[in-house]
């Protein structure tokens, strides 16, 4: 039973102004953001100044690959390994041609695919950084993402520099079929060489990280660190629910759940992440 009753039908918004009036309308769009965690309104500039973390409740909003690189590396870093584009090896079409999806991804993100490599300094330490871009086809891993990360591994091996990969991905890119599956093996065998040569590799898992990314490099760091509240898993929640025909428990596949189960070394807020990484790399510096 509610205290108040709405007598009229649902409220409708005012009709969109036409012609010249449209320009006179005050545009608040984009200045305020509603927090998905605490549901409060946040001024967008505050949010951006705070690394896309809600200043009120600490909810971590997504961050694009370029912001991520800038948030971790000192100014003067260099973006590398760009210009790779998928050839659409299966000539794939579902309800929409894959080539169109690629174009759309490029337009929306300004990247050639869902990955961005950079070399630069993390604090005082020269590193290779590879960041996945979720806004490009759900961060999915096809031949270009696989090759780009493999090149980051090659750079680490060649320069004996620590590698940091920031994941955000739905998994393997279905539109590239078996080609995308084998990228998992490509990257993992490179990481085995880094392990042999005792070159540090740290994986930073962000929301969301799934499928073939979890089942390869995301779980293979010397340290695996996640942002708070990120969903991380092998199978997606819907697939599991359909398989077992039960509701999933609260908090299932969140970072904190994985920490409890022993699959993460730490859950770090975005503000503390950089210091933690620097501290870890100092520990891992092997005397030459």
């Amino acid at each position, binding site marked *: 039973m509610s205290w108040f009753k709405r007598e009229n039908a649902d409220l409708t918004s005012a009709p969109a102004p036409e012609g010249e009036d449209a320009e006179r309308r005050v545009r608040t769009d984009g200045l305020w953001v509603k927090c998905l965690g605490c549901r409060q309104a946040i001024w967008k500039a505050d949010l951006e100044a705070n690394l896309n973390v809600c200043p009120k409740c600490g909810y971590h909003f997504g961050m694009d690959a370029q912001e991520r690189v800038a948030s971790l590396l000192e100014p003067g870093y260099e973006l590398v390994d760009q210009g790779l584009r998928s050839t659409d*090896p299966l000539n794939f079409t579902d309800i929409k041609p894959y080539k169109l999806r690629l174009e759309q991804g490029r337009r929306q993100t300004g990247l050639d695919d869902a990955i961005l490599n950079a070399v630069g300094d993390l604090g005082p330490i020269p590193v290779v950084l590879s960041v996945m871009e979720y806004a490009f086809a759900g961060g999915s891993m096809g*031949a270009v993402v696989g*090759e780009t990360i493999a090149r980051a591994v090659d750079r680490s091996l060649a320069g004996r520099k620590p590698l940091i990969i920031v994941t955000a991905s739905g998994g393997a890119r*279905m539109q590239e*079929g078996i080609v995308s599956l084998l990228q998992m093996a490509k990257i993992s065998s490179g990481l085995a060489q880094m392990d042999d040569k005792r070159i540090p590799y740290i994986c930073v898992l962000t929301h969301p990280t799934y499928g073939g990314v979890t089942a390869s490099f995301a779980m293979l760091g010397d340290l695996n660190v996640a942002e708070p509240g990120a969903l991380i898993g092998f199978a997606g929640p819907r697939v599991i629910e359909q398989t077992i025909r*039960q509701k999933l428990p609260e908090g299932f596949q969140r970072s904190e759940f994985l920490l409890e189960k022993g699959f993460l070394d730490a859950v770090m807020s975005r503000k503390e992440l950089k210091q933690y990484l620097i501290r870890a790399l100092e520990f891992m510096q092997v005397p030459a």
Partner: protein
Amino acid sequence: MSEEQAGKPLPAAVAAAWERVERARHPQRPYPMDLIGRIFTDFSEIHGDRRFGDDEAVACGMARLAMPGGTTQEVLVIGIRKGGTTKEKVRRNFGMPNPEGYRKALRSMKLAEKFNRPVIAIIDVTAAYPGIGAEERGQGEAIARNLLEMSRLKVPTISVITGEGGSGGALGLAVADRVLILESAVYSVIPPEGAAAIMWRDAGQKQFAAAALRITAPEVADLGCVDGIVPEPAGGIYTDPEAGAIVLGDTIRRHLAELQAMPLDQLIATRRNKFRNLAQFYTETPPQPRQTSPEEASSRV
């Protein structure tokens, strides 16, 4: 199978692709353990991952392989167990391994490495099991660890996909010196049903998904994602499992002899290079133009 398609015939290519899937899943198709029984002798199973439990969907064991010239080779064999009867299928979790299965396989492979025995994996798996327990115990980590460790295992390794090569569930046992696939088997990043449900938003489109994903043995080989196709008897291996097993056994012997002739360093370097360089489907624009326009470069930062 979907009702609305029963009326109109499928395009020929789609029907052909789906027929391959049905062959790969044919109920009479010999399962890995049938083939292992026909090809190897003295199979002695070893159980458990020493961490949590024993996965009944994955069998690992010591076995012997008769080699040309009358010698016998000790090998470590891994096979997926799908189970035949319904009761057996339930016991084997329909051949869908949990993390323990991958960890048991890795423990067995490490054992083989210690005693310098080649590893042969016979794979027919729909998928790694997507369940709550599997997630809690790190399905992703278990598969990932196998990819990494298999890439540097210090013994010859051969993996054969004999039915369904189901995504990470298969790849977790297939980072090998030689990855072979039976003629009517399939190797896919996702089962056609799953792809149809996700990408077409209609599980009834599975035949179209099967065709679009290019999962049949010849297509996967054309993409350079396996090292060879093993022919089956005309009409499929289920029409004559014995003959099929003889061909497969001889193929395994031939590859094994080649691998054993290689020095260890070369073996591992060759394996690494193969996985580093396969599945490269991209174009590359030379970096020079980007460097000549600093404005563009800085706008991307």
